[in-house]
């Protein structure tokens, strides 16, 4: 199994380190040719405006959509924004998932927080340590997209739609690899 991590900007090395720790081959994706031979793709946290513009400039947007039509993709934070169909502002998006997302919805850096949350279908049953950094909010999931995790106050923070996964928090900043293992199972099933 070979997983790509979009490496235009952001926390891509954190994802790669976790994948390698799980014994999976992981490569950086910067240009369309880097997608060849991959079984799945992770879009990391970072600045969604920067990632979107660089994807547009280097002709990645179309190839990423084609890739996602047949293979699993997981976006964390900026990656979730990039995968959404609707974010209520004008910036380059992949527009894959039937989700509405609001950027920086929890506030500025001073409001960034960590909290344990329950994620549907996660091994072990223990709460997952969710790190939110200027994080986006999942406003709504439509069609086949379903919410798989919420904060204690009911705010949805993760969604799954077929082979696609999106989380508004950063599993790559924790030592907990369960969500990465969850994504690898989606790749295996595909």
């Amino acid at each position: 199994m070979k997983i790509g991590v979009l490496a235009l900007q952001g926390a891509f090395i954190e994802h790669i380190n976790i994948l390698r720790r799980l014994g999976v081959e992981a490569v950086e994706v910067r240009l369309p040719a880097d997608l060849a031979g991959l079984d799945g793709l992770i879009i990391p946290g970072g600045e969604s405006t920067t990632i979107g513009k660089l994807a547009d400039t280097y002709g990645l947007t179309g190839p990423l959509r084609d890739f996602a039509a047949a293979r699993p993709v997981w976006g964390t934070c900026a990656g979730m924004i990039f995968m959404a169909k609707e974010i209520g502002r004008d910036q380059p998006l992949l527009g894959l998932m039937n989700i509405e997302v609001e950027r920086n919805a929890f506030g500025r850096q001073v409001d960034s927080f960590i909290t344990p949350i329950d994620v549907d279908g996660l091994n072990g049953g223990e709460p997952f340590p969710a790190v939110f950094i200027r994080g986006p909010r999942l406003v709504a999931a439509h069609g086949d997209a379903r919410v798989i995790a919420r904060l204690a106050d009911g705010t949805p923070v993760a969604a799954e739609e077929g082979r696609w996964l999106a989380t508004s928090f950063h599993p790559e900043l924790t030592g907990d690899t369960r969500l990465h293992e969850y994504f690898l199972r989606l790749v295996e099933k595909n």
Partner: protein
Amino acid sequence: MKENGHNSNGRGELGSVTVKRGLAQMLKGGVIMDVVTPEHARIAEDAGAVAVMALERVPADIRVSGGVARMSDPGMIREIMAAVSIPVMAKVRIGHFVEAQILEALGVDYIDESEVLTPADEAYHINKHDFKIPFVCGCRNLGEALRRIGEGAAMMRTKGEAGTGDVVEAVRHARSVLGEIRRLQNMPEEELMTFAKELGAPYELVKETKELGRLPVVNFAAGGIATPADAALMMQLGVDGVFVGSGIFKSGDPARRAKAIVEATTHYRNAELLARVSENLGEPMVGIGVHTLAPEQQLAVRGW
């Protein structure tokens, strides 16, 4: 990792080491640009900057005008925060913890305790553990970096020589920090305490740096980066991203140069692509050779 959270907002724990260092991790592979107006900030965001540094004068102008350089007008920082969706950083004088309290009250996303401003304290830096807002600090070598991290800095930048457009000091400081880490990695355990003493750095952080094979926080390069090639040079030397101060808005075509530096920072190993983005950028900033600066004109020596 030791968590030192400040309080809760009803959703979770705020201001812990993980979220402070975490924002810097999200900025990696990106370019942080100095801006002096909301218009500049929008140009930076459109070019793909990961964050902006809001200040009244870029370092090149601070050099020209002289006098005491202080924290910028909070009103001007607020306007820049309102103009863009990306993180906004702002500078305080070394040791000036009240300027930092003011920036925390404004809600900026990162505070730069910066040698570019006139130091307020000639012996002590700010105790950065006291704040929910993360800090970035400058360093010239590993000892200085680990002292700042010991005081609570959540991100480092090598200092270079700001406002010169001369990359030589940025290279010197990056080579110094990264070279000392390489030396440390080859050192047997029994030498670490003496090495920590020589560096003037906390032993626990020396040990952690050896184990990680890198600084415990994200490390950008700053001070003198003026071209896409300069940015790619710093990335190939091994930093995590770049700050560009005067190099963009003191050049002939800021929007174009800004975009080219962003692309060069992402594709820093792709020489063909670097050649393409370096074409027809117009005049770079004029620049001052660092070797022509009198000792009292050097900013990088500020910091203890």
